[in-house]
């Protein structure tokens, strides 16, 4: 038996000594001999035909080594084609614009020079002439018959349509006591990691091998795509990541700049660096969340939800991201909308449109709108029926004797604990007392409000959900770990995760140390190098590490442990069952004199053929893969209390409480950090953030003084409480990466609306 020593405790982070002393290595810290710098010529127009590109003056500017446009690149590399799915129009595009630009900031040409400043000087000398076209800047305009077309060959700006029918909504609506119609619109906002995108491409003229140092969530996906598009043999292509300054979904796709920078390094035989500036990041780094849902819902006189009809429109922006297809988002929204609630009659229609705006990318909980709309709807229904919103939710949650079951969309609902989290949140926030205080405050002209939000988070996605979604998710699920015992008995873990703030160098090392029985200081976690890490399309994303990466790591660590014990058993001619590994040494139970410290294990494994491995190979080297299974839900109730100043419209968040059930925790401080960070983003999105476009398609929020993010002064202390169901699962940990950002917007919006009830204010956006 392994004694659990580290797992479950807030072990200090392995990453912190370097990060806290300024010795992290982010992509902009990569400096290579002979390195050149790239800058891009970008479109000032939302929609225009390119008449001509004149690079002659830029080419002779001091320090300029290369100026490229599509005409130069086209013979050398392929185009960019995103993932498709049935019925989805997927535009193919080139790294640098070809003929037409479709958003402000689209890269048209690239300058490579001796310094960034010289490259930028030359960018100003590239002369591009445009024939300006009508921009399409909102979803309604995009769908109009006379709309300008982004892709005339496709003959429509609608790129995807889907319709699903579950049960019999017509019959259910006929029985309704109340029917509500609401329109919910989420405004466009963005991931905004504090570190922008960037990369350093380093192509060796001697071997043709290309190394790309970048800031990315999924280095293997990057390599896969680079290889295809650059037509670069994959065995001559290596992608590397160091420390990453946040991503939240943005750095999962492959940027046009990535392609151009790699191509330039290959042409020049020298390293080329590109670091996105903030204006570029805000305009073209990726934006998210712009969705509109028209909802029709029916309830009976007791507030039981009878049926829902949803019509969703999402604005995907100008180009499909090389990563997650538009149909993916709508299908996850459809599959998860019923959540933990009893809903048996349900229609879902969705349309995805393309407009002259930034590319839609996944953002922390990319399907978050299903929770936002459902939980907003419950508050609207509660007011319509005159029922308390918490009570209404309790009436609609599946009861324990109805569970486990399949949701109407085919998702397995197993081990649901939302009733517990909701009741606990209600008690901890002091709900009844708050309602009394609210009445009292209103008398004094103060407007307090409270909002709740329940949701279940697939962390990771389970097979029934993947089936319900019905596309390309399968290859995204497996996780792999590879553990090697080194000659001195220290241990190296190679993971397919690509952490960018999640602390996996700590959490995964905790698991390895506990499973094998060694000190965490003797474990190193290696990520961010496609040459040595196991393949995975997603890297870190989708809240998959806690269950899937852990399962892989624990499996590989157990194999290592078994092999070490078998070695000692053979050496000592003792039964394996009588051996253990304690504090970094194999011991024979009951024979204190018999110990084999790990350094000796290492030496023996590498010097005695046949001891560690029957086939005579040396060393200890174990691989383990882990795939998803049913029941891996994280579940939460978020509760928010606000005060609204009705004169100024200012909202102050007085309390924010999360009651979370993510099973057992590997490192509670890291879990809480993930939850709080997500909540902060959710609050910030509602109160401050907006990727705003003008009517001419001009992008308006080009700096962090225009695109506002919540500061330490804008946020309350975020209270986090944990429940621990399912502690006996073989891998009892669930992901928490996305939930904070999924639950917070609904809880906050509900609270604001609750504060404004006396004014009859409805918040739809």
């Amino acid at each position: 038996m392994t004694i659990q020593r580290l797992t479950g405790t807030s072990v200090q982070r392995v990453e912190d000594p370097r990060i806290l002393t300024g010795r992290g290595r982010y992509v902009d810290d990569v400096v290579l001999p002979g390195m050149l710098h790239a800058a891009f010529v970008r479109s000032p127009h939302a929609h225009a035909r390119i008449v001509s590109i004149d690079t002659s003056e830029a080419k002779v500017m001091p320090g300029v080594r290369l100026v490229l446009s599509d005409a130069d690149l086209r013979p050398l590399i392929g185009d960019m084609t995103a993932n498709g799915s049935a019925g989805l129009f997927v535009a193919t595009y080139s790294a640098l614009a070809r003929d037409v630009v479709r958003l402000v900031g689209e890269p048209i040409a690239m300058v490579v020079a001796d310094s960034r400043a010289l490259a930028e000087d030359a960018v100003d000398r590239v002369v591009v002439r445009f024939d300006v076209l009508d921009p399409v800047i909102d979803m309604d305009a995009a769908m109009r018959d006379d709309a300008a077309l982004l892709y005339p060959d496709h003959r429509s700006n609608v790129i995807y349509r889907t319709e699903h029918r579950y049960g019999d909504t017509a019959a259910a609506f006929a029985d309704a006591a109340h029917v509500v119609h609401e329109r919910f619109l989420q405004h466009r906002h963005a991931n905004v990691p504090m570190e922008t995108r960037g990369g350093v491409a380093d192509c060796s003229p001697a071997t043709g091998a290309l190394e790309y140092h970048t800031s990315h969530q999924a280095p293997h996906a990057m390599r896969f795509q680079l290889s295809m598009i650059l037509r670069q043999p994959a065995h001559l292509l290596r992608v590397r990541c160091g420390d990453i300054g946040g991503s939240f979904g943005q750095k999962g796709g492959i940027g046009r700049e990535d392609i151009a920078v790699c191509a330039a390094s290959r042409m020049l035989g020298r390293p080329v660096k590109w670091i996105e500036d903030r204006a570029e990041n805000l305009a073209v780094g990726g934006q998210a969340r712009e969705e509109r849902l028209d909802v029709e819902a029916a309830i009976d006189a007791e507030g039981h939800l009878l049926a829902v009809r949803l019509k969703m429109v999402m604005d995907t922006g100008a180009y499909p991201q090389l990563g997650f297809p538009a149909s993916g988002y709508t299908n996850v929204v459809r599959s998860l909308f019923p959540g933990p609630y009893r809903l048996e009659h349900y229609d879902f229609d969705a349309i995805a449109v393309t407009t002259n705006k930034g590319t839609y990318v996944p953002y922390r909980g990319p399907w978050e709108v299903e929770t936002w709309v459902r939980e907003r709807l419950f508050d609207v229904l509660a007011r319509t029926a005159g029922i308390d919103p918490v009570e209404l939710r309790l009436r609609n949650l599946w009861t324990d004797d109805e569970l486990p079951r399949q949701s109407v969309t085919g998702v397995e609902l197993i081990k649901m604990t939302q009733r517990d989290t909701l009741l606990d949140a209600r008690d901890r926030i002091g709900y009844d007392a708050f309602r009394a205080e609210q009445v009292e405050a209103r008398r004094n002209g103060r407007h307090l409000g409270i909002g709740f939000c329940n949701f279940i988070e697939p962390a990771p996605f389970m097979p029934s959900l993947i089936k319900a979604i019905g596309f390309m998710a399968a290859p995204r699920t497996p996780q792999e770990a590879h553990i090697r015992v080194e000659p001195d008995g220290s241990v190296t873990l190679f993971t397919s995760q690509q952490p960018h703030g999640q602390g996996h160098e700590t959490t995964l090392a905790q698991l390895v140390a506990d499973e094998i029985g060694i000190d965490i200081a003797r474990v190193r976690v290696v990520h961010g190098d496609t040459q040595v890490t196991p393949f995975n399309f997603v890297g870190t994303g989708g809240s998959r590490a806690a269950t899937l990466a852990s399962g892989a790591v624990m499996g590989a660590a157990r194999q290592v442990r078994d092999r070490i014990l078998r070695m000692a058993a053979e050496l000592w001619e003792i039964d394996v069952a009588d051996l253990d590994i304690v504090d970094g040494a194999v011991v024979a139970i009951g024979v204190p004199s018999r110990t084999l410290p790990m350094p000796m294990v290492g030496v023996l494994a590498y010097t005695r053929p046949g001891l560690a491995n029957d086939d005579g190979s040396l060393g200890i080297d174990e691989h383990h893969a882990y795939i998803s299974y049913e029941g891996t839900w994280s579940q939460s109730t978020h509760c928010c209390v606000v005060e609204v100043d009705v004169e100024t419209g200012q909202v102050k968040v007085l309390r924010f409480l999360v009651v979370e059930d993510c099973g057992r925790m590997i490192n509670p401080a890291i879990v809480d950090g993930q939850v709080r960070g997500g909540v902060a983003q959710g609050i910030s999105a509602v109160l401050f953030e907006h990727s705003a476009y003008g009517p001419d398609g001009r992008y308006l929020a080009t700096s962090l003084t225009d695109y506002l993010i919540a500061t330490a002064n804008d946020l309350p202390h975020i209270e986090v409480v944990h429940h621990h169901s399912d502690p006996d699962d073989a891998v009892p940990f669930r992901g928490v990466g996305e939930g904070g950002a999924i639950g917070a917007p609904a809880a906050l919006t509900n609270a604001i609306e609750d504060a404004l009830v006396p004014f009859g204010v409805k918040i739809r956006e």
Partner: protein
Amino acid sequence: MTGPATTVEVTLRVNGEERSAIVEPRRTLVELLREDLELTGTHIGCEQGACGSCTVLIDGASARACLTPAFRAHGCEVVTIEGLADAPGTMSVLQQACMERHAFQCGFCTPGMLIVAAELLAERDDPSEAEVREALSGNLCRCTGYDSIVAAVLHAAERLRPTVDGAAS
């Protein structure tokens, strides 16, 4: 156009050591630190003066190195994140407190946060939570929601305060 018209020599003390470099007048202090002096602990999050990642101490006062021309730091005493600990391989009380409280995640905002926190703690050893939040409010962190950073600064203050018998705890 020909090459850069002029250059200036900038000499300053960085983390207690005299350093100098010959730079173009348009070079910013953050570029000087990161590129000429190879101190990459100070980060660039926006170059717009808005995120605070590039914050350093100039003669004891925090300043945004992305907005400060390098030549302005001529003759000044500059402290960066690399200079917060007394000796290489050690950490200051503030840095230790950050480690104990899991203050940061991705670490990109860290240099600026640590500098403004160090500035605050140099001025007062008993800040309230509201004062800590106010001091950090010019620096953006996208990962943490700030709670853990605020907790770490308060924890550091507690450890820096003299105890009743006069010694630092």
